[in-house]
């Protein structure tokens, strides 16, 4: 295919030359792109002592797993991981359910005021978190509610992105399917639950991964709301240790924390990569 079309193409480069050029360009970029992560991993597996002399190797120096073991056993890192898992898990779950519900209503049920409400939801997509921060902080402070899981989760469930993705997706499901279900005797609710929800699994998977990554990596709100060390999430916890490594005394340990903090997401990323890409294209509206 490609050869046939390329032959007719009045392009400056021969197909093979072009492909080699493209491939080498991509490879160079790929090398640059992967370098920081390789570096993080190699430092994480190097001993702290060796790193005081040399931090430039791309392979572990004096390889050891003591840094990782130290992270997992010592300090509050396991607790921070647990916090992150709990907060992220529930936030994702609630976001999925609420977004699917709202998405169905916006996509399929005609109701008054939809033309006003939907743009308001979309606009919410873009509101910077700083704009709600101070009253949010003050309100939770007044209610003595900081340093709880609820405080970490609640403000983030309101995810307009989810409503947007689910609305886009459900609007694209053929109307006939829903009509078939109604003729088959299903109520609106049943149609939503037994037909539309299962059909939306691809979009919900994508949205789930998206939400999970964003929530896991979130920094600002946990930084403000969780002030007790036991309630830190992995991101704020990691940042709180940041000041200690200026002299590179514990660089290996620090990188090990980076690895531990990223690993759950990297694994998730490799398992669900396809769905994530799909989610990006639904979210961009350029399906």
């Amino acid at each position: 295919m490609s050869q046939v079309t390329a032959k007719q193409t009045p392009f400056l480069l021969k197909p093979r030359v072009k492909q080699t050029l493209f491939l080498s360009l991509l490879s160079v970029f790929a090398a640059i792109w992967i370098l920081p992560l390789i570096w993080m991993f190699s430092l994480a597996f190097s001993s702290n002592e060796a790193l005081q002399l040399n931090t430039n190797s791309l392979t572990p120096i004096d390889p050891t797993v003591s840094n990782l073991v130290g992270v997992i056993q010592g300090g509050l890192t396991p607790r921070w991981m647990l916090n992150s898992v709990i907060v992220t898990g529930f936030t994702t779950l609630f976001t999925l359910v609420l977004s699917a519900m709202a998405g169905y209503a916006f996509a399929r049920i005609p109701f008054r005021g939809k033309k006003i409400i939907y743009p308001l939801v979309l606009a919410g997509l873009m509101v910077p978190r700083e704009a709600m921060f101070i009253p949010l902080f003050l309100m939770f402070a007044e209610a003595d509610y900081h340093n709880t899981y609820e405080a970490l989760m609640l403000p983030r469930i309101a995810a307009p992105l989810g409503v947007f993705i689910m609305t886009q997706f459900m609007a694209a499901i053929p109307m006939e399917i829903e009509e078939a279900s109604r003729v088959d005797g299903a109520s609106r609710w049943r149609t939503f639950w037994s037909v539309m929800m299962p059909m939306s699994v691809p979009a919900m998977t994508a949205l789930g991964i998206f939400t999970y990554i964003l929530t896991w990596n979130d920094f600002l709100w946990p930084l403000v709301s969780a002030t007790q060390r036991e309630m830190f999430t992995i991101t704020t916890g990691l940042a709180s240790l940041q000041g200690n490594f200026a002299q590179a005394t514990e660089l290996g340990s620090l990188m090990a924390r980076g690895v531990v903090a990223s690993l759950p997401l990297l694994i998730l990323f490799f398992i669900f990569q396809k769905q994530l890409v799909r989610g990006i294209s639904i979210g961009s509206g350029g399906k």
Partner: protein
Amino acid sequence: MASVKFDKSTRMYPGGTKPAVDQLELEIADGEFLVLVGPSGCGKSTSLRMLAGLEEVNDGAIYIGDRDVTDVAPKDRDIAMVFQNYALYPHMTVAENMGFALKIAGVPKEERAERVLEAARLLDLEDYLSRKPKALSGGQRQRVAMGRAIVRKPQVFLMDEPLSNLDAKLRVQTRTQIASLQKRLGVTTVYVTHDQVEAMTMGDRVAVLKDGLLQQVASPRELYDRPANVFVAGFIGSPAMNLMQLPIVEGGVQFGDVVLPVGKDVLDKASGPKVTVGIRPEKFEVSEHGLPATIDLVEELGSDGFLYGRSQIEGADVNLIIRTDPHDHPMAGDQIHLRSTAEEVHIFDTESGERLN
């Protein structure tokens, strides 16, 4: 099983100026196969969807049996529908697709399985029950959609262009299967199509719609032999009927150099000095006298031959199609004369388009 009755049913879309279906009056007998046919936008699908309860009825009423279902939800109408794109649930297997309605109705699991299997046997789908729609061919999907309707044992089947996504050969095959299945099950069926061949071959009766208005309801033969107006005359039959406007003269209408005899009682009903004369392609006769025509093109189809020609009538070119013997016919470029017998022509009022004879 039940009869169906549209009683002045009207559907007006919000923001529209003209009703999509205008005071439809139609009665469908118990067990009858009725086809709704017409060009796109004629309101045939809307009528069907009104009967299904998917489209609101703005005025008039709809009855299934003796029951007024005008405001009844689709699920409570005891109907089943086959959609144009089949609308199979992609996340369910064939068996689950067919059993979904029964499941919702609370039919016990065993009875459900039994009825699904029974329908699958009828449609030759037994081997595919555990597959998902994605893994089926177009024809198989179509049968699953049929199966989903049959399993329900509904009072009425509704079918919305169920064959339009099949290739030509499969369409002809499935056409006869559906018709014979319907005869066997004896369920009242309303079938929508834009294809007049489908309408003529499948329906006990055919209802022709145009612009939301019912034009004629009749058996296929009557529709062909006695179309009620110019629209039906031109729509039903392939190739289409030849229609020409001819002046009324003493004893009939002027037909080239001869007079086509038409009864005075018929012509007296005409509103103007001309009438529209309709002649089917097979009712023309090539002769020495009559309407002069030039042949442009000849099609030989083996069993039939068709001549495509032109005739000057009252200073304007009129295209004509004539069916002839495939082996013995005039050639392209030939000048011929055409005649027809009085019993074979259809006379319509030029103004209203209504049938006069």
